[in-house]
């Protein structure tokens, strides 16, 4: 008899639920999609059941956290998962969600105009035709984000289109089937609204567990806004802490909380406030949009904000699955390549049809969003030095041109007085410069960057 025994792998029974799958790191961890493939990647494949996530958006001029929450709700409705939405205007909030483009009854808000994706597709087709060298053909195409879900992953993560709105019929059917529930923020007696809401959520989860353990997603958009009354930092911590306890108690559920923008800064909760929020939640991500700082949007014209990751969910392991499996963060890739470099900088952008999270790169030219495959409108200084250029093509450097001309003239007019030669050379040079300037006039006017006012300056006497 062999002394070696095959170790029995104890697999936890995974009841197949719509829209869930096992995490790549642990079979015990069941994940579900947030509706945004790139955010799923950042979280290590998806948001694990029994975990809470907090999306912070401190910028008061934009509502990207609510947009993420709408994706989360729309994904729940698309998968027919149990969805609980908390808030006095929860029904209205759900009716503003996006939907899949091909679905019957989805309402496109605009039609006929080509979207960003079509333009991007054309640009990529154009780029594909450009051959650089045969040896690079096998190289993987440079990507800044993860792929969109294809038909095989459609049952896990749907493809939503921001130009389509959720049909009324879907919401009414979901309400009738009790797939979606709206929990208002009520004030009764001495109890705080957060306790009342959490008690209601606990009742629903308890009831669901008795019947069918559906995967349940809880969404709290605009937590801490005016309808929640006067809340202090301790209330926020308590709400998030108790919500997480509740999720641990009912491990078939997960939650996303989007605090109101004024709660998302250290000024409100004191020093270390964001870290406190991260400690009492499983996943904590800040979407700091550029709305409040125009200089940042000038520096990063193709993005709408930066992504900061504070905490990552790890319900059954010490190492968060995101560290190993997130392609966008690239932490594990840096470890395996022995480079020891840190994680990628991440940013997000909201295009006409979708919101994506991607790695942040400066463009080759230093941040100018210029399409490099189109014919250049200006010529490089290298071409100016070539001998067979026509005068109209001779572009920028007048001084260089003049010196070349002066060299030619000097060889012709040998023997004249030095001073005369110099004046004639100068006059030739000036006339040539005038010709070049005249030839350049019909060209494209140079863009003016600096601010200029026609009014005289205060000290301009």
């Amino acid at each position, binding site marked *: 008899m062999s002394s070696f025994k095959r170790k029995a792998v104890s697999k936890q029974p995974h009841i197949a639920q719509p829209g869930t799958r096992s995490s790549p*790191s642990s079979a015990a961890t069941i994940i579900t999609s947030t509706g945004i493939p790139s955010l799923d990647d950042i979280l290590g494949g998806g948001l694990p059941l029994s975990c809470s996530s907090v999306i912070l958006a401190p910028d008061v001029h934009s509502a990207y956290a609510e947009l993420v929450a709408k994706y989360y709700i729309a994904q729940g409705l698309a998968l027919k998962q149990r969805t609980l939405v908390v808030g006095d205007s929860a029904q209205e909030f759900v009716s503003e969600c996006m939907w899949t483009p091909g679905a019957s009854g989805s309402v496109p808000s605009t039609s006929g105009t080509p979207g960003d994706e079509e333009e991007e597709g054309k640009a990529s087709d154009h780029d594909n035709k450009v051959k650089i060298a045969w040896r690079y053909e096998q190289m993987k195409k440079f990507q800044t984000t993860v792929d969109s879900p294809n038909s095989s992953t459609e049952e896990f993560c749907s493809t939503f289109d921001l130009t389509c709105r959720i049909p009324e019929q879907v919401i009414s059917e979901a309400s009738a089937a009790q797939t979606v529930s709206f929990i208002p923020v009520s004030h009764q007696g001495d109890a705080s609204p957060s306790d009342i809401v959490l008690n209601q959520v606990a009742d629903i989860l308890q009831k669901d567990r008795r019947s069918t353990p559906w995967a349940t997603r809880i969404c709290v958009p605009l937590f801490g806004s005016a309808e929640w009354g006067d809340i202090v930092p301790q209330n926020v911590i308590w709400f998030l802490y108790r919500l997480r*306890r509740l999720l641990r108690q009912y491990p078939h559920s997960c939650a996303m909380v989007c605090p109101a923008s004024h709660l998302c800064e250290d000024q409100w909760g004191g020093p270390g406030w964001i870290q406190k929020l991260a400690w009492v939640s499983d996943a904590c991500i800040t979407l700091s949009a550029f709305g409040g700082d125009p200089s940042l949007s000038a520096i990063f014209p193709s993005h709408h904000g930066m992504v900061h990751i504070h905490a990552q969910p790890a319900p059954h392991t010490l190492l968060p699955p995101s560290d190993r499996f997130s392609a966008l963060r690239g932490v594990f890739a840096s470890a395996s390549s022995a480079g020891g470099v840190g994680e990628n900088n991440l940013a997000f952008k909201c295009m006409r049809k979708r919101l994506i999270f991607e790695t942040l790169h400066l463009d080759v030219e230093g941040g100018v969003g210029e399409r490099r495959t189109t014919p250049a409108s200006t010529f490089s200084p290298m071409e100016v030095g070539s001998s067979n250029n026509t005068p109209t093509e001779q572009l920028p450097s007048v001084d260089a041109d003049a010196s070349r001309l002066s060299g030619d003239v000097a060889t012709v007019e040998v023997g004249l007085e030095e001073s005369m030669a110099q004046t004639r050379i100068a006059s030739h040079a000036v006339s040539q410069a005038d010709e070049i300037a005249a030839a350049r006039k019909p060209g494209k006017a140079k863009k003016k960057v600096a601010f200029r006012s026609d009014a005289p300056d205060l000290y301009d006497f």
Partner: protein
Amino acid sequence: MATFPPPDLLSSRQVVIVTDQILSPANFLLHRTLASHFKDHKDARCIVLLVSESISRWNAIASRATVNLAALIESQALRFLDMVKDIQPHLGTDDSTRSTLIRSLLQEQGDAQADQPTLILLDDISTLEWMGYATNELVKFLRALSILARKGNASLVVRHHVITPDTPDVLFRFLLQLCTYHIDVRPLSSGRSGAVNGEISLYRGPSNGTAHVKTTPRQRAVQYRLTDATAVYFEKGTGQAVL
């Protein structure tokens, strides 16, 4: 290959505080402490005071470290006590949860045999303060807990989250006075890395009388890298990414 913590660190009557930051959570140290306590001592006992970590996570990680928590709970060698009730504390006041907890702990200590190595593990004290418990009450509770541990020849491990490293808060300053050893888990100052998750230093506390475990100052901090179930320790500058 370095090891951490030193073997005699959690011998009897030691009060050890573990401080960590959000980029380098010290959960792995708590899980390792529990697992090694039961592996090193045959008749060991442990009481885990739960605040942040869930029992399911304790179970999942212990099973990967080949420690069967279910059997330990059944044999009364391990107990999980919940520190928080489902009602939010009134701000700045105390409730009777922890006084009853102390009483039940005293009862258990009386039941236990004196030679049984006992570990009391409080997984998070900071969250209690953040959710509204008065700092003074928490200080009293910690003092009572440490006295209880010393009387019962037990060792006590308390974790505290540092959120403002430059300005230590009141609770942290008290814990520093109370402890015999202080384990500080910090992230790398250069940010997150896949090769190194953070570094650990070990200091002696002012309450340390006779115990002499070799300390690890910050200049020679032990670095670590997390795996799914455990952590790999190595000396500074000897990681796989460096060599």
